[in-house]
């Protein structure tokens, strides 16, 4: 490498910078819901095939994160929450992040196609396309419904995992997708309540920026109200058992309480209720999906067959 090559970078690009591009925390949630889809799906695949499917889901999620960071690097640099990401910090060039993201996405979809099945590969390709093109390039800077519609991309991993094992889709994976889809708005709008000025400075039309905090609190409560009953549906379609029903009902009730507290919040500077809601919403995905996995691994019967 020529000396001028290294000097043209503000800082040397490390392996850690590329790893950070994959958004490992978001990836872990996607992998977890994808794993739930793989485990609860009917049918049997070789464990290595299941591992390959999960690896492809993880890689595609990471690639989507890298491409999101590449295309949004201008606004990431303006926002406090994202200013320390590798591209705005000057650790990685935007073009390198794009090449890295598209290469990994293509490899993940091709591997899924070759070794798992066409349906899972097609869904995986659609998920990357939806997150990068529809959400990041299309909706994010144009409408306050950005995360509502864009949330479909983050909701699809259980269906991809299911398709990888079963080779088809049915009502059960669609319900799991619907749960995560309905969960996305209260989760991200809770965050946007206390990051409102950040989004406004970057020109991102999040709901509190465009419609105000009051309208956002009402919308969060409505979505939580719809999500709580939807969350227990898997127990009545032969997917979840008693453990799932108890845990999802408890989490739904807890989420609803926090959404109500957010609705009544008076402290518009620190937004403590919205911060609690954000934390509970993370648990809301983790706990019921963990219950589904535990029930299947320990052969606990579904409540309704």
């Amino acid at each position, binding site marked *: 490498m020529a000396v001028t090559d290294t000097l043209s970078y503000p800082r040397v690009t490390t392996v850690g910078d*590329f790893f950070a591009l994959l958004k490992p925390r978001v990836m872990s949630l996607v992998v977890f819901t994808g794993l739930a889809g793989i485990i609860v799906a009917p049918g049997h695949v070789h464990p290595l095939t299941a591992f390959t499917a999960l*690896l492809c889901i993880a890689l595609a999620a990471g690639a989507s994160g890298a491409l999101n960071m590449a295309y949004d690097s201008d606004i990431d640099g303006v926002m406090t929450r994202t200013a320390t990401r590798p591209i705005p910090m000057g650790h990685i060039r935007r073009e390198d992040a794009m090449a890295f993201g598209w290469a990994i996405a293509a490899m993940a979809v091709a591997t899924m196609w070759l070794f798992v099945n066409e349906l899972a590969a097609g869904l995986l390709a659609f998920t990357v396309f939806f997150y990068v093109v529809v959400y990041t390039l299309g909706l994010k800077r144009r409408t306050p419904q950005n995360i509502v519609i864009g949330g479909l991309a983050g909701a699809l991993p259980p269906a991809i995992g299911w398709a990888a094992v079963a080779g088809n889709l049915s009502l059960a994976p669609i319900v799991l997708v619907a749960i995560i889809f309905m969960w996305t708005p209260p989760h991200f709008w809770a965050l946007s309540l206390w990051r409102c000025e950040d989004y406004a400075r970057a020109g991102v039309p999040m709901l509190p920026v465009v419609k105000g905090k009051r309208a956002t609190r009402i919308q969060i409560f409505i979505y939580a109200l719809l999500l709580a009953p939807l969350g227990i549906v898997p127990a009545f379609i032969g997917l979840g058992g008693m453990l799932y029903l108890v845990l999802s009902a408890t989490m739904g009730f807890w989420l609803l309480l926090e959404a109500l507290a957010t609705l009544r919040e008076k402290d518009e500077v620190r937004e403590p209720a919205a911060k609690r809601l954000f934390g509970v919403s993370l648990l809301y995905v983790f706990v019921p999906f963990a219950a589904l996995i535990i029930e299947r691994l320990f052969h606990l019967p579904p409540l309704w067959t």
Partner: protein
Amino acid sequence: MDENPRDRNDRAERERRKRNIALALALGGIVILFYLMSIVQWHENTGH
């Protein structure tokens, strides 16, 4: 942070080596995975 150009180039060279090792490991992992998955598929297709 001010850094001596020589130190910087040494560090750049070390990081480049680390990146190459990470890339080699990733490619090696893919080759092994493809090899094993090919065997799994061959077994499934031939009913062994």
